[in-house]
C-alpha cells in the first residue's frame, strides 16, 4: 500500500506544480492581453509581436529596445518572443502563436527565407500584418521589409572610410569571409568599381578569405602584412574578420600604422577603437532598425500604408520614410562608429 500512496502523492504534487505554473502563466498572459486592448485606446489593434532570430542575442536585444521605445511613443504594446536557437523552423510555432493570439502585427527577422513562409501566410490570412527586418523572407510572404542598408551603401562607406584614413593613396587588401559568401562578394565587386572610378591612387593588392573563422582570419592578417610590407590599410567586410584583424594589429608593430576598417559590432571592436588600433568601422544601428520596424508595423495596422510603392509614413524621431520597390523600406546609410559614439552602444 505504501508504494501506491507514495506514487499517487508524488503524481499529485507534480500535477499541482504544473497546474500552478500554468495558472500563474495564464493569469499573466491574460492581464497582458487586457493591457494591450485597454492601452491602444482607438479601434486599431496596436499589439505587436517581435520575433527575432533567437533570444539572448545582443544585436536583437538592441533592436527590440528600439522597437519598444517606438511602441511606447505610439501607445501600442510590443512583446518579444522567440526560440533559443536560430534553426530554420524554430520560429514557426511562435508565428502560429501570434496568429492565434490575434496580434495586430508581427515583426520578424527570418532564420530562413522559405521555411517560415507558409506560417507567415497563415498569419496574414488571420489578419496579422507581417513586417520583416534585418533578414528578409520571400517577398510574397510579408507585407513590408525594413532593409538596414543597401549593398551599394555598405560598399561605399567602407571605401570612403579607408580612403580618408590612408590619405586616398597606397596599397590596401580586403579580408573577407569565405570565397563563396554571397553578400561579401557582392560588396567587394562594388568596392572594386568604386576604387577604380573614384580612388585611382588606391591599389587593391589582394582579397584574402578568413572563412569567418577567428583563427584563420588572424593568420591571414599576419600573412597579408608580411607579403605586402607597404600595405597601408585593410578592409574587412565581416564582423569575425575585422575583430580578428584588429586583435592581430593591436599586438603587432603595425598598430596605428596600418589602417583597418570594415563591418563590426561595437562590443567586439570597443577595445581596439579605444586603444587606437581602429579609427572607425561601420554597421547599421539595430536600435533604429527596430524603431523603424515598429513604426512601419503600426502604420500597416492603422491602414496608413499598404506596402505599395510610394506609400509614405512617419517614424517618430527618424522622420518620414517612403516604401520603395518590392515593398521595402530603407533605413538609410550605414552608421559609422568612432571613439566618440561607441560608448552609446551595447551589442
Amino acid at each position: 500500500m505504501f508504494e501506491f500512496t507514495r506514487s499517487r502523492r508524488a503524481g499529485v504534487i507534480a500535477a499541482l506544480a504544473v497546474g500552478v505554473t500554468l495558472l500563474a502563466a495564464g493569469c499573466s498572459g491574460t492581464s497582458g492581453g487586457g493591457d494591450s486592448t485597454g492601452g491602444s485606446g482607438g479601434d486599431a489593434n496596436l499589439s505587436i509581436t517581435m520575433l527575432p532570430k533567437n533570444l539572448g542575442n545582443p544585436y536583437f536585444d538592441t533592436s527590440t529596445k528600439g522597437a519598444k521605445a517606438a511602441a511606447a511613443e505610439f501607445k501600442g504594446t510590443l512583446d518579444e518572443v522567440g526560440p533559443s536557437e536560430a534553426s530554420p523552423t524554430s520560429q514557426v510555432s511562435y508565428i502560429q502563436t501570434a496568429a492565434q493570439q490575434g496580434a495586430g502585427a508581427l515583426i520578424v527577422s527570418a532564420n530562413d527565407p522559405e521555411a517560415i513562409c507558409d506560417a507567415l501566410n497563415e498569419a496574414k490570412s488571420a489578419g496579422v500584418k507581417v513586417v520583416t527586418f534585418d533578414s528578409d523572407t520571400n517577398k510574397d510572404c510579408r507585407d513590408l521589409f525594413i532593409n538596414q542598408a543597401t549593398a551599394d551603401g555598405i560598399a561605399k562607406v567602407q571605401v570612403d572610410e579607408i580612403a580618408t584614413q590612408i590619405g586616398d593613396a597606397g596599397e590596401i587588401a580586403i579580408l573577407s569571409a569565405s570565397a563563396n559568401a554571397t553578400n561579401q562578394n557582392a560588396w567587394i565587386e562594388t568596392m572594386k568599381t568604386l576604387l577604380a572610378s573614384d580612388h585611382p591612387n588606391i591599389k587593391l593588392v589582394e582579397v584574402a578569405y578568413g572563412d569567418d573563422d577567428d583563427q584563420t582570419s588572424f593568420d591571414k592578417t599576419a600573412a597579408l602584412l608580411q607579403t605586402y610590407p607597404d600595405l597601408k590599410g585593410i578592409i574587412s567586410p565581416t564582423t569575425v574578420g575585422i575583430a580578428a584583424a584588429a586583435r592581430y594589429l593591436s599586438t603587432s608593430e603595425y598598430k596605428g600604422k596600418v589602417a583597418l576598417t570594415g563591418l563590426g559590432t561595437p562590443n567586439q571592436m570597443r577595445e581596439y577603437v579605444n586603444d587606437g588600433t581602429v579609427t572607425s568601422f561601420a554597421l547599421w544601428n539595430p536600435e533604429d532598425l527596430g524603431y523603424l520596424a515598429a513604426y512601419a508595423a503600426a502604420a500597416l495596422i492603422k491602414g496608413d500604408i499598404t506596402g505599395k510603392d510610394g506609400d509614405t509614413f512617419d517614424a517618430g524621431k527618424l522622420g518620414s520614410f517612403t516604401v520603395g520597390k518590392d515593398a521595402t523600406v530603407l533605413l538609410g546609410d550605414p552608421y559609422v562608429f568612432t571613439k566618440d559614439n561607441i560608448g552609446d552602444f551595447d551589442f
Partner: protein
Amino acid sequence: MTAAATTTAVPARTYKAYGRPAWRRFLLTREMAIIALLVLVVVVSLAVVPHFDSPLTVTYLLRDIAPILLIALPMTLIIITEEIDLSVASIVGLSSVMTGLLTHGGWPFPLAALAAIVVGLIAGVFNGFLVTVVGLPSLAVTIGTLALYRGIAVGLLGTTAITDFPQDWTELAKANIPGTPVPAIMIPFVILAIIFAVLLHFTPFGRTLYAIGLNKEAAAFSGIDVGRTKFVLFTLSGTVAGFAGVYFTLLYSNARGDNATGMELQVIAAVLLGGVSIFGGRGALHGVIAGVLLIGVLGSSLRLAGITSDIINVITGVLLILSVVSASLLAWLQKRRSAAIGRKKGQAGVSSPSERATR
C-alpha cells in the same frame, strides 16, 4: 494418523497470477500518471490560457509534433532493448535533402519520397550493421552516424535550400482530416502506432525486447537472436525517420541539410518522460505517446500564455528530471516495501494466532 493430520494442517500452496488486482495494474502505473498529467495540463490550459481553446491549437500542435511522435515509436522499442539511436534527426535531415534533390532533379514526387524513405532505411541498416555485426555500442555508433549523416546532408546541398515542391503534396501535408481540426498526418501515425503497439505488447517479438533489455545474456541463452532483433529495430528506426523527413520537408516546403537539428534529444526526452527506462526492459507505448503530447501541449500552452522559450525549456527539463527521479525513487520504495513485507511474513510465520488477531 500423523500423516492424515499433516495433510489437513498444511493445505497446498496457491499462487496468484498477479501480485496486484487488475485495476491497480492498469491505473497505478507511470504511464497513467503521465496521461493524468497530460489531461490536467489540457484542462488547466483550457481554463486559464487565452486562445488555447481554439481548434487551431490542435492543428498546429499535432502538425508540429508529428515528426517527434512518429520517430518516438521505434525509439521506444530501441530504448526498451537498452540501446539508443541518436542519429534519427540526422536521418530526417538526410531524407529531407534527398527528397529535395530528387524532386529538383525531375523525379516524380512519390518516387523521390520513396527513395528518401529507402535512404532512411539504408541509414538504419548501417546503424544496425555496426551495432550488431561489428558489435559496437549503439551510443558510440549513433553519435558517429549523427555527425556522418548530417555531414552528408549538409554536404549534398551546402547552405542552399530547395523550396519548390508540388503544391498538391505540400497541401496534403498541411491538410486536416475533413470536418476536424486534426491534421491528416495523424492517419499514418495512428496506423503506425497500432502496428508498433501490437508488435511490442502482443507478440512474442515484443516480449523478447523486454527480455533483451532486462538481461541480454539471459535472453541470448534462452534462444533469442539478440543481434537480429536489434538489427530489425535500427532498420525500423531509420525507415520511420526517413518517412518523417519527407513529411518535414513538405510541411515547411523546405529541404535543407540542417533540418530537424537536435530533434533526437526531443524524441528521447519524450520517450523517457513517457516512462521508458533508459536502462531497458521497462516502458509502454501509450505512455510514450502521452509523453510527446505532454511536452507539446505544455510548450503550446506556455507560448500562448506569453512565456519565453528559455522558461519553457526549463519547465520541460525539470519535468523530465522529476519523471526520471520519480522512477528510481519508486523502484527504491518498492524494494524497501518488499523487504518489509518479507520481514513481516517472517515474523508472521512464528507468531501465534492470538498475536495475529490483535494486529
